[in-house]
């Protein structure tokens, strides 16, 4: 009997010894590690898709760059918006009152999101060349990533001035080895221009499955905007004329078929997404939860038919006042009354005007704006035309006929008289003729303000025009707080705390 037990014990010991060989090496089934990736064409495509996704999503579920986050800096930070009583986040409110400081969380988040996208672009640009697949596609993918990297740096350099120019992913986790100094603005722009120049070799258009990717026209257009920002008028003019559809202006050679929608509203509608006016848009989709546009601009604009509930973002009353009643952009951009399609009752929100431009009216229920399927237009043809008007005014020392034409096309569309291909029927809304250079410049900037409400342009326009401080002085909530230092956003305090090589912008 005893022996049987002993035998069984020995068996157990033997079995124990066998199962005891537990491997300690990790071989995860549920995730991919970098050594397994960047091997195939599909990997390369996914790597570039990941760069795009940084424009419309945040890894922590926060507002993405081209959701509401950049708009908080550009809209709340400018004279277009003030804080809303529902901005219970003090950092958001501080942007609306120009009391933000270097440790403002939204500024940090925006900086972080931009570098997050840049990092993904760097990964793609560094890793894709070593993957063996179709040459044409490989070059295209790298160029797409370069455009996106340039776009993100263009935002950063305008917001913060000198910024660290990072072009490769870190190969260490030691903070001391990751310290870099800020790269001068000129060098950052040189990189942006070089990346965009590369990207101009992208396809003119895409098949349906790839619609929404970066095109050559988008690259030329953004490059033009960079040159305008740099006040490099000859280059700006040259690039703009490559974009502007040939035949509409004497020097225009554009073959991309860009044109204004006859109806301003169509620039912000689901059925007209990626249309003839859109050079580049960040893509959103109403997709029943598979992935929706959470924290998109729309969810800050409208969430309730209850007038007691304030929207997250509210226009300043002085912005509303600059639109005349015949301007179709007023009713597209704002509302005071809204129809509740569920009850067919028009709900009156009273005296406080709200934003309407990015409300997706196709949603049921309409309050479900977190599911908005509207794209965010990063670069529209109207922008190109206004940049052209501005460039011609600067390069010629005053407005030329073409400059007038460019701004009047945009105005005619706003007043509903634009048809197509640079033609409109009624000249009564044209800008008053005979303006001097300075007055014309002001007219262009005013037109830009009306045209691009909530499209992440206003603060940039004020800053590059030197009008930021004086414009904010007109807003009571900001007047006492604004100073010259606001012409640049501060470098986030956490970055300076970690890296003593980083300097802060003047006044911060």
């Amino acid at each position, binding site marked *: 009997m005893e022996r049987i037990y002993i035998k069984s*014990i020995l068996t157990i010991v033997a079995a124990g010894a066998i*199962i005891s060989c*537990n*491997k*300690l*090496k*990790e071989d*995860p089934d*549920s*995730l*991919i*590690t*970098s050594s397994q*990736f960047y091997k195939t064409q599909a990997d390369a*495509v*996914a790597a570039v*898709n*990941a*760069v795009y996704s*940084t424009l*419309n*999503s945040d890894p*922590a*579920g926060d507002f993405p760059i081209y959701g509401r986050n950049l708009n908080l800096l550009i809209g709340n930070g400018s004279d277009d918006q003030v804080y809303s009583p529902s901005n*219970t*986040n*003090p950092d958001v*409110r*501080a942007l609306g009152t120009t009391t933000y400081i270097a440790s403002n969380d939204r500024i940090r988040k925006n900086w972080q999101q931009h*570098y997050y996208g840049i*990092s*993904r672009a760097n*990964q*793609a640009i560094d890793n894709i060349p070593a993957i063996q697949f179709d040459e044409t596609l490989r070059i295209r993918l790298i160029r797409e990533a370069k455009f996106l990297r340039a776009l993100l740096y263009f935002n950063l350099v305008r917001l913060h001035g000198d910024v*660290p120019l990072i072009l490769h992913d870190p190969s260490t*986790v030691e*903070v001391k080895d*990751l*310290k*870099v100094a800020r790269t001068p603005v000129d060098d950052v722009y040189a990189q942006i221009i070089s990346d965009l120049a590369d990207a101009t070799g992208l396809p003119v258009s895409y098949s349906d499955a*790839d619609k929404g990717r970066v095109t050559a026209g988008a690259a030329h257009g953004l490059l033009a905007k960079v040159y305008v920002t740099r006040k490099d008028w000859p280059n700006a003019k040259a690039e703009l004329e490559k974009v502007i559809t040939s035949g509409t202006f004497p020097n225009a050679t554009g073959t991309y078929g860009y044109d204004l929608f006859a109806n301003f509203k169509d620039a912000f509608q689901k059925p007209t*997404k990626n249309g003839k006016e859109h050079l580049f848009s960040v*893509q*959103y989709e109403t*997709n*029943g*939860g*598979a*992935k929706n546009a959470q924290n998109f601009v729309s969810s800050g604009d409208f969430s309730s038919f*209850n007038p007691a*509930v304030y929207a997250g973002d509210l226009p300043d009353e002085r912005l509303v006042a600059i639109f005349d009643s015949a301007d179709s952009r007023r009713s597209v951009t704002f509302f005071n009354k809204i129809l509740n399609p569920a009850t067919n009752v028009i709900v009156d929100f*009273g005296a406080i005007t709200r934003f309407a431009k990015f409300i997706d009216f196709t949603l049921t*229920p309409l*309050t479900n704006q*977190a*599911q908005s399927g509207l794209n965010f237009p990063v670069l529209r043809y109207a922008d190109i035309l206004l940049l052209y008007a501005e460039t011609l005014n600067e390069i010629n020392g005053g407005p030329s006929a073409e400059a007038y034409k460019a701004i009047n096309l945009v105005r005619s569309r706003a007043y509903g008289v634009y048809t197509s291909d640079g033609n409109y029927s009624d000249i009564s809304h044209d800008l008053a003729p005979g303006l001097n250079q300075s007055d014309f410049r002001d007219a262009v900037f005013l037109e830009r303000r009306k045209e691009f409400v909530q499209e992440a342009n206003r603060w940039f326009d004020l800053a590059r025009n030197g009008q930021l401080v004086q414009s904010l002085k007109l807003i009571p909530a900001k007047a006492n*707080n604004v100073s010259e230092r606001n012409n640049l956003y501060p470098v*986030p305090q956490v*970055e300076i705390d970690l*890296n003593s090589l980083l300097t802060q912008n003047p006044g911060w």
Partner: protein
Amino acid sequence: MKKYVRVVLWVLVLFPLAISAQSSTDAVINSTIDGKVVDAKSKTALDGATIQIKGTTNKASSDNNGKFSIRTAQRFPYTIVISFVGYQTKEVLATGSSIEVELSEGESQLSEVVVVGYGAQKKSDITGAVATVSKNNLTQPAVAFDNLLQGAVPGVAVTQSSGQPGSTATIRVRGGNSINFGNDPLYVIDGFIVYSNNNLSNTAAGSGPGVNALSSINPSDIESIDVLKDASATAIYGSRGANGVVLITTRRGKNGRNDINYSAYAGQQRIANKLSLLNAAQWAALVNDINVSDNVAKTFSDSDIAALGQGSDWQNAALRNASIQNHELSFAGGDEKSRYLIAGNYFDQPGTVLNTGFKRYSARINAERNLSERLKIVANFFGSRSQEDRLFGNAYGSINFNSAAFPILVQTSPVAKIKNDDGTYNMTSPYSATPTNALQDIVTTTNRTYLTRYLGNVSAEYKILKELTLKITGGADLLNTKQNYYAPSYTTAGYASGGFSSVGSVSAVTWLNENTLSYDHAIRNKHFLNVLAGYTTQFSKDESVVASAQKFPNDLTSFNNLSFAGTPVLPVSDAHQSSLNSFLGRVNYSYLHKYNITLSGRADGSSRLGANNRWGFFPSIGLSWNTGEEHFIKRIRQISNFKIRVTAGQTGNSEVPPYSSLAALTPTNYYFNSILVTGIATTQLTNPDLKWETTTQYNGGVDIGLFKNRVNLVFDVYYKKTTDLLLNVPLPLYTGYTSVLKNAGSVENKGIELGLNTDNIRSKDLNWKTSIVFAANRNKVLSLGDKVTSYFPIAPTGQVSPVIVKVGLPVGTFWGYKTDGLLTADDVNKGTPILAGVPQKEGDRKYVDIDKSGAVTTSDKINLGNAQPKFTFGFTNTFTYKGFDLSVFFQGSYGNKIFNLLRQKLEIPTLSLNASASLLNRWSPANPTGSEPRATNSPVPQVIDRYIEDGSYVKLKNISIGYNFSKGLISKIHIKQLRLYVSAQNLVTWTNYTGIDPEVNFYDSDNTKQGIDYGVYPSYRTFLGGINLTF
């Protein structure tokens, strides 16, 4: 269990004695005396007792059946002396017939055996800090056993997350060592190691605060709980010992009896406390005041307000008094070779909030058999199925809180009607963003979790030699979680999606194989040596899946058939596995049970850590000196026991998620032409150097027994320093990464602990015992790595973090503004500094400009205290008088702060949400002496000293009165034991805290966000009657 261990130990210790005793037997035989030595209480045989004929050297030793036989030249009658270490020596007159001698346990701690890691040890020889939970604490009704540790053991702090039946609790043994990962103790259930990971009992399908994985274990199965606190005791658990080890032994059958036991209790839970809110008329007046400050017309006319009256009490409408019941049936017994226990349990606790509750069915079989003199096998098997209906809210582990059911409910406007006249829910409130109803949301949302757990292990112990034992254990813990969630289209959560449903499942398995060799050797009853060596290996794997869908045409199928939904949601699945291989060893040496030394250590290899640092070694040393055994102390009659203990050692923590050291890529999505595409990119940098957090701990203690051990005092002082913290070290954001998991920084904990047990009255009829436990711990962040002196843990979206982790302060310190009443007209005139960027007038809150910069900015925020108590205590008195027993248990905490986030929310006047009744005393031109700020439209909430409240409390946790029927009375009806009792739990709470209950942790056991109250499930009082019946 203890008994058997004790027998085994004594056999081993006394074996040399027995050898020498037998060799001196006389050759001339005149008489033979046979007999048996048994324990007076348990009647179990005592192996190795010495039987000596008085006045001679003639002696024998009892065998493992307690039997002895002496043949002697002496004639009857003569006196024999029976002695056994740890028992009182007895003299018996031998007259010739076979005798049975009952020995009673001595009063010395020499006799007591304490369960320690991988074995048991005589209390006298222990060097480490080990505490046992008293029986009185164990018998309290509880959903999960972790609740039973509260106030039971010095140095173990337990905080319930909420009043939700089956809720989690935060358990800290001697404070939290880690900032980010793994502060919970290790649980060892009948030798099987369980790290309670609530990620395994929660999926993304569930909504609301966490489900407690430990609630699947039936607490009434537990015979004893021992807590190992210092490094000497826990180093044998190596990399998992840093946070203390809780050893749980379940009930076993006893030799020589066959008992059938039925225990049950039933009772009622009643709401303990409610929030004081505005009624409809008061709220309407508040809205009018906001209108005035906004310069718009008043919403309500005076006649409107008069007509509103009380309005709706939403809080009341969702609460109820609920029943609670527990039934337990067990069969236990055994003979000399086998012991068994079969037990079944049913527990049912409907919640005090509608549509919530907890239910559990469980069964246990414990069996053991001595197959031979040398071989013993033991099997423990436990299975349970529990069902928990929770309040919906923020998902487990998420930082968002805006969707928590209870806060939403209490913030619902009292002007809105709850129900229409026809009894249906009113869904047309003008103050709701969607046409829904907060109470209906609670009643109609399904948020159910099923936990199914099987925990089983078998072991075989084989005595290779008399002193050398091999033990092999194999076991598995299977935990299966299923969560069902359904929010119909008419609820707030389901409105936008037309009904939302989600099912989630986690299937987790852990298996463990342990092989130990132990060697016990005693030399001349002076030198006692015990050596343990072992190899163990553990493997864990979990697989999870969550599927969701939305747009349901009706409520008929909901989560049971997602294919009826109109729109699928991208499903997710995940899997992890990890391995841990270990070598362990321990040497105990004792000289005369007076001078003791314990050396122990464990080498652990964990798959979760970086490739360069998988293995770690954790050593410890412990010394103890039974000073009381020295003559100079023995002379002092009052001192019956005096022991000094000193230990030092290192333990570890590696509770990072698997794959934390790898360069991981994660998927994201984008659209081209409305078609979803996947993007993949690196989101985590690799760190092959990732290694353990190491806690170095020093402990000094004394155990003092006075007046024949009627007063027992245990006092410990400790210092712990945890280095190489597993921190998400911030990286410069321009790298594209926010942080990397690295070992950096250090935290210290130091404190004192006191346990005092007194036998105040000990008499035939009346007995009175008192137990006091007291512990004070101080926690401090010493370093956060290079260049980092503080950081703010991630705050809920749209909120400013109320806590800071800062060098020199305790982990999770509240950080905010100091305030000084309200701005007066005088303040405004003379330009008292105001909150930057916010327009302020007379009657607004006045913030203190700490740095005298002329404006109140974030640099004026200061330390407002922290959630860690200055001390915790438990105070128990038990009285028995004849058959009656009375137990009174107080438990408390002092000096802990609570961030009353719900109060902050409720004191913000808005045009749509209800507010706290404290706003009645708001400043207004008509009420210039008001203490609260004037009504404005949704002012930004600030973290201010007002909302960092003192969370100190004393609770009358349990009071119970019972009656034990006398044996004579009940034996006629064949009942061995019958006890009836009534008890009340949480009967009284003394506190200054203004929230519902000071025991609150909205963020569960997140170490950096302790003590935050955002309106958790309300607490309740329980009144019970119970029976304990043994046949």
